[in-house]
């Protein structure tokens, strides 16, 4: 059972600290495990600090997402390979990510949140951010994909010709 008034203090990689309700942190496998490992009294308010390898700006975004999703069911429902789809991102989440579009480093923010969701083991946030990035790439040409991902082609012409043959069914 999670008591709504319980608090946990998180310390970030750049030295900030923030205290949040355990209603939020229960969605993070990493934080819940850290609390369990501390073996502190569940009624302690606030609990001892948990160090997270995430910077302050990214953690703020994670907390904003957790606040919206605090009542989501746990455990997070895992999809099978057959059920996988990227077009089911909730409207609030879409608007949440679109806000970053005004930032110069929008893609960097997305990478930072994906990495944070992975480190903190927040499955719902990880799922949503991975789908968001996939949706940016879906349906694009190879050249557009390289531009979005800022990657250089490192194939030889012969290797590319071989892949083109294998890919003819989806590219021609």
């Amino acid at each position, binding site marked *: 059972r999670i008591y709504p008034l319980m608090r946990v203090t998180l310390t970030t990689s750049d030295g900030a600290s923030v205290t949040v309700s355990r209603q939020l942190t229960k969605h993070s496998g990493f934080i819940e495990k850290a609390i369990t490992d501390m073996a502190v009294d569940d009624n302690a308010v606030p609990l001892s600090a948990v160090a997270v390898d995430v910077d302050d700006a990214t953690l703020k975004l994670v907390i904003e997402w957790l606040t919206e999703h605090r009542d989501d069911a746990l455990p997070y429902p895992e999809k099978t390979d057959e059920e996988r789809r990227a077009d089911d991102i909730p409207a609030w989440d879409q608007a949440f990510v679109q806000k970053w579009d005004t930032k110069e480093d929008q893609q960097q923010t997305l990478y930072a949140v994906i990495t944070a969701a992975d480190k903190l083991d927040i499955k719902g946030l990880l799922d949503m951010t991975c789908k968001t990035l996939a949706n940016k790439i879906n349906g694009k040409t190879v050249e557009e994909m390289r531009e979005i991902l800022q990657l250089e082609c490192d194939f030889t012409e012969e290797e590319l010709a071989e892949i083109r043959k294998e890919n003819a069914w*989806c590219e021609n």
Partner: protein
Amino acid sequence: GDLLEIFDDGTEKRGETTFMDLPDEMSIKIIANLDLPSQFKMRRVSRGFNELQLCVKNMLQTIEIKIIPDRYEMSINPCSRNSPWQCHNYDELIQGLRRLALNTSINRITIREELGTDHIMIEDCLMDTLFNFEADELITWNDKK
């Protein structure tokens, strides 16, 4: 996270994170969310993607291959293509299927050979390739009679 670059004059700058800096499990999760044609197109982006794409497990409902006198047609479901892929080059068909079979399982494969075709040798090679798939059902249809 960000890479820290230290220059000769001692100044420091955070380098930009790229897709390839993400842990492989994350990259695979992102690639797995692409539709099938985009996923395969992404193989041409870089060697890294070409290797990671093999780690994605794809599940398809059906592949239907039609052998028509002057060409082949292939329909994949689900797939974002609206119309069947029309192919005149048998090697492209076989190479495409071989590569697809490496990480794709399918509920049903159907081959339909239409009146007027004479592809007995081809059929053997095609069948060998299709047996590489993890599939529940393989149906062949022959309209030649």
